[in-house]
């Protein structure tokens, strides 16, 4: 990309955003467009393959991953509204295709993958203007976004740009919310104990919204909050940023 800001990018919705949080996907696309980037959304997107990969079914994961890589032939950045799926495509695809005939092609693809906030901050250097009412939020850093993908506070720095938003950190910001994909249904008791602690932590911050960059964490935390009739709202960071900064 030679130091200049890219003019066009691909957007990969991810299966969870596609099915459960389409508004977050839309918001992500809007944020990119407003930063002056043309967004291409190829048809045929399904899943990055992470569920099968993590469960040890690599052949099945590869079959799916192969079809997904093929959707992004041009040398453009691929933006995902999810730290976990971006981690899968960026970090784990090279492992998944290690020694396979298409390894080089996949590696080239992986090098183009970004999580949305990472791209907004590190590549586009966006500046946000807050148009919303004062609000207190808290941030759940998804494990894969931080530990696999290596996010270094990009989401927090975007939230920090919003003048009317107070960010109240969780006591255990870096502790897993208990989702873990199939872990949540294979070990529902431990997973349930983890998410119960997470929502207690979030509630104690006094925030009215929990933000995250990952559909899995959002679904998990939201489901647990709803089951307890919690008043806290859960929102994808893209949707939150877009809602607060869009011209009305």
């Amino acid at each position, binding site marked *: 990309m030679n130091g200049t800001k890219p003019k066009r990018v691909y957007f990969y919705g991810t299966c969870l955003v596609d099915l459960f949080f389409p508004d977050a996907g839309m918001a992500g696309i809007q944020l990119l*467009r407003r930063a002056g980037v043309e967004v291409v959304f190829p048809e045929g997107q399904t899943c990055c393959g992470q569920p099968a990969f993590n469960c040890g079914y690599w052949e099945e994961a590869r079959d799916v991953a192969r079809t997904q890589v093929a959707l992004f032939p041009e040398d453009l950045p691929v933006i995902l509204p999810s730290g976990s799926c971006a981690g899968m495509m960026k970090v784990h695809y090279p492992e998944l295709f290690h020694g396979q005939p298409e390894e080089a092609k996949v590696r080239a693809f992986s090098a183009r993958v970004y999580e949305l906030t990472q791209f907004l901050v590190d590549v586009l250097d966006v500046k946000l203007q807050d148009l919303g009412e004062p609000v207190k939020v808290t941030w759940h850093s998804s494990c894969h976004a931080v530990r696999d993908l290596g996010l270094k506070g990009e989401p927090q720095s975007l939230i920090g740009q919003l003048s009317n938003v107070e960010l109240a950190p969780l006591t255990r910001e870096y502790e897993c919310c208990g989702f873990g994909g199939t872990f949540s249904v294979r*070990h529902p008791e431990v997973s349930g104990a983890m998410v119960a602690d997470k929502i207690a932590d979030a509630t104690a911050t006094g925030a009215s919204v929990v933000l995250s960059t990952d559909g899995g964490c959002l679904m998990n935390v939201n489901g647990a909050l709803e*089951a307890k009739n919690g008043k806290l709202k859960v929102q994808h960071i893209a949707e939150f940023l877009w809602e607060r900064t869009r011209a009305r």
Partner: protein
Amino acid sequence: MHAENEIHFRDAAAKALLDPQLRANFRRAMDGLIAKRRAQFPDPRDLQDLRDLSTAIRSRSLLCLPELLEQLEASCAKNGIKVHWAETCEQANELILGLLQARGAKTMVKGKSMVSEEMHLNAFLEKHGIEALESDLGEYIIQQDGETPSHIIMPAIHKNKDQIARQFAQKIKDAKYTEDVDELTAMARKVLREKFLNADAGLSGVNFAVAETGTLCLVENEGNGRMSTHVPPIHIAVMGLEKVVARLEDVAPLYAILTRSATGQPVSTYFNLITGPRGEGEKDGPQEVHLVILDNGRSRIYADPQLRATLRCIRCGACMNHCPVYTRVGGHAYEAIYPGPIGKILTPQMEGVGVRHDLIHGSSLCGACGEVCPVEIPIPEILVRLRREATHEDMGSNVAGKGTGRTATEDWAWRLWAGVSKRPGLYRIATWFATRFGKALPASAPLIKNWTQSRTKPVPARRSLSERMRTEGVPHE
């Protein structure tokens, strides 16, 4: 078909979660350890430098493991330490029994040793009329109550002070009830001092064995390690075959990162360098020193280039202290010698990935363990590898029990998932159905039922993102 005799971590974990005292004990203790470790590594770059160095030392040691072990044996022999090799725990137990019986030993005091736990040595010796008394305070507490360690370096961490006070009042002769920690410690010390003085033999573990010099390094905080290895006439040390390092200078960085990672101490209270039996003219030390080197599945792990990283472990326990699962369920729920993340990768490799399939999946792959590991063992990656091994026989590996965790249901489920997900047309239809009828799925359906134990059922959006993009295109304001 699940592997016969599969051990279900889920059930034991679920049971542990119902014990609020246990959960509070672990949470408090782990929070304390996390904070103490953090305080020891104020500069992340310094920490990373030390991790890099430690990882390199452990990797290099493993790279030339056979040569180093041979060298260790020769150096030990020169120092008067007799080395014995055991492929299995049974062999190791028999070996030790033979050494004790040859000298008519009836009592043995033990410093802390996880390898001896692996061997179930105490029970074995007891069967043969030899008393093996744990002298590490934590080990002493749990032995008294017939329990196993719940943490590799803090074996009694599942109990709090009040529980121990009640136990001591009950189990120590003439003890009066007190909750004063110093008094409780003094009680145990009084019992143990007698034992140290009169024991026929002493046993210890080994933190690092130095090939070049034939030195056995022992890290401890209570002085019981020194007493166990120094006072009785025979000292028997046991270690896993991975514990060897090449040179004495390799020990300093490993020691520095071990105590900091484990208990947040810059140094331990005692650090023993054992170089042989009592020499001529010396006033103390044992007359005989033996080193038992145990394999117990380690050479099988060693043979695999990826899984070999498991053997880098220096047993600091930082992975369990930082694990969100371990913190909540404690060590006993793992029903394994080594609990927590390291146990999750070590136990299945020793006992079989099928028998331990449930344990391999008892992780959210959050990565906290790998992040703190002082020797950078990629625990989440190895877990995924073991998940593959458990369900696939044809990986070309030598992993114990490979393929025996495979079930027709799971196989079918992933094939169906792939069949749909690699065909966008089919996927589109599936998504369409989910958005229109997802709400109607009963909360009691399999898997959904597990999810809704603590959450509401997730409801798909009315129209998926892809559908909106297809019909509306990329939005223009």
